[in-house]
């Protein structure tokens, strides 16, 4: 369970998170929508401790992320995150990209890590690209590799930060299909996205962020069908 309690975060004078309260249960798929600068991506990087917070707390399975003495490297093993940029390690093949962290961080044997990497890469449809370098692949393939790389750590939660935003339109589908597949398998996911159709399909709940505040959170039928918040109505009208 991820518990977010009254979280505040500022970059200099700009307050990007103004007291966010949110709980994500095991097995839940939560999508976060909202305009740019609404704080939704910042929240994700706060959850895995890449960003510090200025108030409140975030607790992942009983561990306070930002408490002194929290082993962030250990905590991050259970929080897989995939970013907008594909962030492939360009000097390693696809297989090596996925094997690196399990071998170096989890201490798995090469054989163990390779079996896991092949399984995850096959799962996301890259079983035939094992020995290829990332630069030889499309953006969609690189992004699926990044997903497999995160999955190879056997995380309990997956965080997706606008993973289709940097993709050519014709490549968005293959990545969303991968996310749909994970959701149907019961993975606990928080997806920051601009893909409204996707959000409507896969989410258990959808949260709308506006200017650092979570303005509305509801199951997709309610949020998209009968939005209450005025800003959400404007936002939905603009994206349709």
């Amino acid at each position, binding site marked *: 369970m991820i518990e977010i309690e009254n979280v505040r975060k500022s970059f200099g004078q700009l307050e990007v998170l103004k007291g966010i309260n949110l709980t994500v249960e095991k097995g839940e798929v939560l999508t976060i929508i909202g305009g740019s600068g609404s704080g939704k991506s910042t929240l994700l990087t706060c959850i895995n401790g890449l960003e510090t917070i200025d108030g409140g707390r975030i607790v992942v399975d009983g561990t306070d992320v930002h408490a002194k003495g929290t082993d962030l490297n250990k905590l991050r093993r259970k929080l897989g995150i995939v970013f907008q940029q594909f962030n492939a*390690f360009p000097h390693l093949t696809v297989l090596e990209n996925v094997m690196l*962290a399990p071998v170096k961080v989890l201490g798995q044997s090469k054989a163990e890590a390779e079996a896991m990497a092949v399984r995850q890469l096959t799962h996301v449809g890259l079983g035939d690209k094992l020995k290829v370098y990332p*630069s030889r692949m499309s953006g969609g393939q690189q992004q699926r590799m990044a997903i497999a790389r995160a999955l190879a750590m056997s995380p309990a939660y997956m965080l997706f930060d606008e993973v289709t935003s940097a993709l050519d339109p014709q490549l968005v589908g293959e990545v969303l299909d991968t996310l749909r597949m994970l959701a149907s398998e019961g993975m606990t996911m928080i997806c920051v996205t601009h893909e409204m159709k996707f959000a409507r399909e896969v989410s258990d709940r959808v949260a709308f962020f506006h200017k650092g505040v979570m303005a509305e959170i509801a199951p997709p039928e309610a949020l998209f069908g009968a939005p209450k918040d005025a800003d959400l109505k404007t936002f939905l009208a603009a994206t349709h």
Partner: protein
Amino acid sequence: MFDTALTLADLGFLAKGAAMTLAVTAVSVLAGTVLGILFGVIRNQAGPYWSMPLTFLLDIFRSVPLLIQLVLGNALQSIMKLGWAPFTTSCVVLSLYTAAYCTEIVRGGISSVPATTRRAARSLGMTWWQDMRYIVAPLATRVSLPAWIGLTLGVMKDSALVLWLGLIELLRASQILVTRLQEPLFILLICGAIYFIISFPIARLGGSLERRWSND
């Protein structure tokens, strides 16, 4: 037609000079690179403000002519009664000179690795050190290699200046023979050829490494 007083023993004398050039260069490039990596990482981690003293010190080594550094370094070791041999003094000064340039090369290499790539590595649970070792080091090396090869070749040629401290390296050995045999063109031709023979493999090594890494 072609006549020379150069004997086999003279060639051996030149070879000994070349060995001295190689020794000074090898020690200086090795020590300078290790220091350069250390300083480069420090400068990158500490940020421009905290690394100001280090930056200032390295700027001195980059801007004062090497000859002056060698002479002053030698004077300093003698004032401080360190009792260093000319070889030691030469290597210490040349190492710091190399380190000053290498620091910039390393710093540039590290900053060429995108912050987002490093963030991805840390997100997978890698420690700072693992990120440095498995992501930053290989990527930065690829970017820095051409400049580092250039630095190494430059230091090898600059190392001729240690003759001012009395070391008989390749250029000084050639000068001695020129003075004795009065065949400057021929002897300097051989001297230049030896420099080339030493440099060529280093330059080729750089080229072949670049090719090997170009697949990714």
